[in-house]
């Protein structure tokens, strides 16, 4: 709650300074604000405060995921000045929209009521629609915004219809009350309730880009400005999966055993289709879109087997995914700036001239692929163990096969930068700051790989 208030004030202040054309103040202000927000957010740890009539529940789960979202904000703003290097304008509106999206995400991670959930989801989505089209004279960006908006609002329609049906039958928007209603039915839940719940699931599957509701994601993620793509893939996924987890574990927990079939089918399809499609991509941004689809599949696996540790594992998975993705996108941004392309050949000879960038990229890609001993490996390992313990061995087999396929495409840029033959391309100038940033992130990925229990045992 404090985090939301702090972020709203920050966004408004940021716009105020932006209107006054004080470009130099903006980024430091946002950094200080985000760090204060992080502290305020963590200050509620362990208290499990319920705000406003069970509307907003700041339990450890929501605080952890909110912190990840704020961390995403910090990382994105870290690379904002690199992406928007030549822009004269203070860009306060884009920054404000990113902050608004984070607010929406925090709401999605901490709601206790379906109405609040919907408001948070819309805040996140509307900011995303606009951000996707923020490169206004680029036709790909326009296309991305339009496609995202049309399909996204359609999915929102499904979600809202689902909420309406669930409310109509159970008579409450409160998650606990819905669970009480299900328990009161004694296993005889009306079909209309199930229909509503499935419609909500369709909406959520769209938001995390799970197959078969993933068709928007390649075009949207390719067309959007790269910094925004990095933000959307991470923040969107974290917020949506947190909301999905809350919905399943609080409201629909009593129906969980009947839901697993649906979730398993979606997860399997998502892993297979995402990984297989990513193999054929030469455009790295598009490849990231498809690999993001595959990662959603892994995230869904955490919802299928619910154990005492599944929240912690989900958090760890999300954290490793966020750090690796943002690092990779940071390097990608730099290369696109210099070489003007997202295709693999742009990475040729990167290791010779820019060892730091090549190293960070390699670590990020290996973490995403799940190579030991990096963070991504430990995340996948814990997740697979959890799933296997729940009795879904064949699902684990599918997931492992998916991971093996993913090694092929995740290694493409690494191979290009380290082992490619032919003339290496010229050196890319980058600031010391940037190098330190990506190095720190790479070290973080390695460290997390050694200490996964620290994060997992948080929840």
């Amino acid at each position: 709650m404090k985090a939301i208030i702090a972020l709203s004030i920050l966004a408004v202040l940021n716009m105020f300074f932006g209107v006054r054309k004080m470009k130099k103040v903006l980024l430091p202000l946002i950094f200080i604000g985000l760090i204060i927000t992080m502290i305020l957010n963590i200050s509620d740890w362990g208290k499990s405060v319920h705000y406003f009539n069970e509307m907003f529940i700041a339990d450890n789960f929501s605080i952890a995921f909110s912190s990840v979202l704020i961390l995403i904000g910090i990382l994105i703003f870290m690379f904002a000045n690199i992406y928007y290097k030549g822009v004269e304008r203070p860009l306060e509106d884009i920054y404000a929209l990113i902050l608004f999206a984070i607010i929406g995400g925090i709401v999605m991670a901490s709601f206790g009521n379906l109405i609040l959930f919907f408001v948070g989801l819309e805040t996140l989505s509307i900011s995303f629609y606009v951000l996707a089209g923020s490169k206004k004279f680029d036709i790909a960006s326009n296309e991305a915004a339009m496609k995202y908006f049309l399909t996204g609002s359609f999915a929102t329609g499904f979600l809202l219809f689902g909420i309406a049906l669930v409310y109509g039958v159970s008579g409450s928007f409160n998650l606990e009350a819905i669970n009480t209603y299900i328990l009161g039915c004694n296993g005889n839940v009306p079909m209309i309730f199930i229909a509503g719940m499935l419609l909500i699931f369709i909406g959520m599957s769209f938001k995390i880009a799970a197959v078969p509701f993933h068709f928007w994601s390649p075009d949207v993620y390719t067309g959007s400005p790269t910094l925004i793509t990095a933000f959307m893939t991470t923040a969107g996924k974290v917020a949506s999966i947190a909301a999905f987890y809350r919905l399943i574990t609080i409201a629909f927990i009593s129906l969980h055993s009947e839901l697993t079939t649906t979730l398993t089918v979606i997860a399997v399809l998502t892993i297979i289709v995402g990984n297989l499609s990513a193999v054929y991509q030469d455009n790295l941004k598009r490849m990231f879109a498809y690999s993001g689809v595959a990662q959603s599949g892994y995230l869904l696996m955490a919802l299928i087997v619910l154990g005492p540790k599944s929240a912690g594992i989900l958090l760890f998975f999300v954290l490793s995914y966020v750090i690796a993705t943002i690092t990779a996108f940071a390097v990608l941004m730099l290369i696109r700036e210099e070489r003007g392309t997202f295709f693999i050949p742009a990475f040729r000879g990167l290791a010779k001239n820019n060892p730091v960038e090549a190293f960070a990229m390699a670590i990020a890609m290996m973490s995403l692929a799940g190579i030991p001993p990096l963070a991504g490996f430990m995340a996948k390992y814990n997740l697979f163990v959890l799933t296997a313990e729940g009795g879904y061995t064949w699902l684990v087999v599918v997931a492992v096969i998916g991971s093996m396929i993913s090694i092929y495409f995740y290694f493409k840029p690494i191979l290009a930068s380290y082992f490619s033959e032919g003339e290496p391309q010229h050196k890319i100038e980058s600031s010391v700051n940037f190098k330190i940033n990506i190095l720190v992130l790479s070290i973080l990925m390695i460290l997390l790989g050694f200490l996964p229990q620290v994060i997992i045992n948080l929840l």
Partner: protein
Amino acid sequence: MIFSKYLFFILSFIAIYAALKVLISKKPMHSVLYLTLTFFAIGGHYILLNAQFLAVVHIIVYAGAIMVLFIYTVMLLNLNIQGEFPKSRLAKFASAIAGGILLFTLIAVFRSYDLKVLADPSLNQIGLVKNLGKILFQDYYLPFELSSILFLAAMVGAVMLGKKDIY
């Protein structure tokens, strides 16, 4: 009241007929106007449920603001070209099946549930201004306030997209 029962059927008929015409009409302008008619019919349903405040606000917001802007856009863009979007036969077939299944499921689901009947909807007090205000500012205070952030985001976005800078 037998009278309001007939009103219900008349309003429902208008709402569904107009909603269908929104899809069928060839001219975008007609579609928009039929959509407005649908909103009016739904506003009538609110009045039957004694939710006068909701009814009036529904008309003000949807018919008075949103649809006017819609018409505005249609008028300015002059979308009067009688063109069909190129759709493959397969896509039409698939969408018909998918939509049909959804419709079928929903109808089946609604039939399977015995909906509770309100004794007299005209005695319903929840849609009056006082009750609605109390609920909004007590139970649903947080979503109400947070929607201001939602609107601010939408407004900032609209202004941003309207500017002429590259970013």
